[in-house]
């Protein structure tokens, strides 16, 4: 495809998305996923049309009931007259690159309702790229005019945690009687949850799990103090003052809810808490702060990727990585010198352009 053609294809897609065409939206997300030529222009053009739609992240261990909950959540929003976009992220095989994306099976409540736009995405083994692709897909759904966006992912691994960080409100799903799950949650996920949902609450052990969670969240507040999401709280903070601080200032106290997603029990409560959380974010200015943090991360990520691209080209110019390795291995040179050599023209260029 020539440059001109790519350009007009991008314009056409942008017009389609803004016009509410489902096909154009689907195509746009494919372009984003594939990193097809013109995808950057596409996302750039769409960004101007976004309004900062509320994004809800849903995470939890496999089998906790994420997809079923998301289905019911989407239905509840639809009943309020809101349109919904859902992105479900599943892992892909590191060997074949293939994937079975199964979250769609649970989307039974919104059959034939095109105002719930459900899209499955796979990790495709791209390091750090998954969160970028997801963020770009959110941009597309936002520009399309969705009122709520839900991102669903298995919360295991850095990639997925990054994905969930693209959300304004994070829902962590836990199943009852999963003492080990709660243990697992201690590392990482516990800190990013704004709402904890004990799903399958009709099962034995639900109450215990709720109690366990509340206790652990209490510990979290005690140890991280008001720094909360940034995890920068001083470890030697006096517990008593931290505690009273948390009550009086802007800190959001994570809620623990019970649901039975298959029957739709507790979904209204969840919706209520999510609305409260969003209001809280807006009123405290945290919404803005989070958005800024996200943009910063996004810009840095893009810069790193682009700079890496430039460097790859420079490495090729030096005869390729293998040649450089040979030289290092033969003790003709060392990794630091190689890095300096490869980087030198870039650094020079930056220096000159600055003036």
């Amino acid at each position, binding site marked *: 495809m020539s440059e001109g053609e790519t350009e007009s294809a991008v314009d056409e897609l942008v017009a389609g998305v803004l016009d509410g065409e489902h*096909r154009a939206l689907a195509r746009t997300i494919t372009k984003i996923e594939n990193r097809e030529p013109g995808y950057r222009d596409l996302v750039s053009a769409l960004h101007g049309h976004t309004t900062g739609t509320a994004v809800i992240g849903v995470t939890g261990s496999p089998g906790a009931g994420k997809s079923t909950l998301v289905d019911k959540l989407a239905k509840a929003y639809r009943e309020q007259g809101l349109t919904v976009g859902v992105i479900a992220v599943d892992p892909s095989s590191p060997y074949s690159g293939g994937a079975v994306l199964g979250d769609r099976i649970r989307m039974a409540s919104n059959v034939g309702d095109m105002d719930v736009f459900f899209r499955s995405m796979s990790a495709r083994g791209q390091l750090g790229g998954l969160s970028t692709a997801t963020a770009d897909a959110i941009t597309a759904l936002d520009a399309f005019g969705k009122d709520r966006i839900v991102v669903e992912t298995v919360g295991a691994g850095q990639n997925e945690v990054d994905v969930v960080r693209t959300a304004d409100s994070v829902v962590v799903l836990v199943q009852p009687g999963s003492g080990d799950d709660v243990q697992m949650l201690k590392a990482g996920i516990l800190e990013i949850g704004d709402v904890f949902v004990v799903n399958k609450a009709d099962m034995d052990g639900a109450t215990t799990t709720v109690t366990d969670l509340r206790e652990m969240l209490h510990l979290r507040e005690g140890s991280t103090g008001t720094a909360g999401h940034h995890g920068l709280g001083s470890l030697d903070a006096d517990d008593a003052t931290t505690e009273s601080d948390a009550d009086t200032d802007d800190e959001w106290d994570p809620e623990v809810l019970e649901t039975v997603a298959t029957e739709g029990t507790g979904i209204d409560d969840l919706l209520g808490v999510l609305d409260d959380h969003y209001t809280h974010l807006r009123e405290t200015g945290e919404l803005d702060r989070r958005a800024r943090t996200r943009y910063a991360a996004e810009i840095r990520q893009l810069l790193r990727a682009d700079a890496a691209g430039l460097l790859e080209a420079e490495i090729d110019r030096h005869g390729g990585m293998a040649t450089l390795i040979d030289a290092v291995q033969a003790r003709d040179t060392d990794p630091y010198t190689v890095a300096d050599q490869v980087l030198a023209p870039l650094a020079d260029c930056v220096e000159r352009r600055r003036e």
Partner: protein
Amino acid sequence: MSTGQEQRTVRCLVAKVGLDGHDRGAHVIARAFRDAGFEVIYSGLHRAPEEIVQAAVQEDVDVLGISILSGAHNTLVPKVIDGLKSYDAFEDTLVIVGGIVPEEDRADLKAAGVAEIFGPGTPMSETIEFVREHVDR
């Protein structure tokens, strides 16, 4: 210059449509597609044609594989294809059918827009090869 190289992956929807509870074949083909490096979305059982269309459009799949063993293919498959057309999605979706389709029905299905029909005993590799050859992206 751009970030990252282009990463194209064949996306398939493996769909069970209508009152047909036999999904072993669909599961086997879903796995085979996955192992071939495709991204597979499985519809689940007992889907209405509109649901299949909704999924195919939203997921922007390259391939729609309809598994059908109930004998209702003459009714259901054209409905799916019409639905795709109404969203302007038929042209670039490769529609294939797997299952029990009598010889005399095949010509009609192909005329309706089905690219190929794979009966029982078709080697997995043949189906995968067909998809690779006919997906243009």
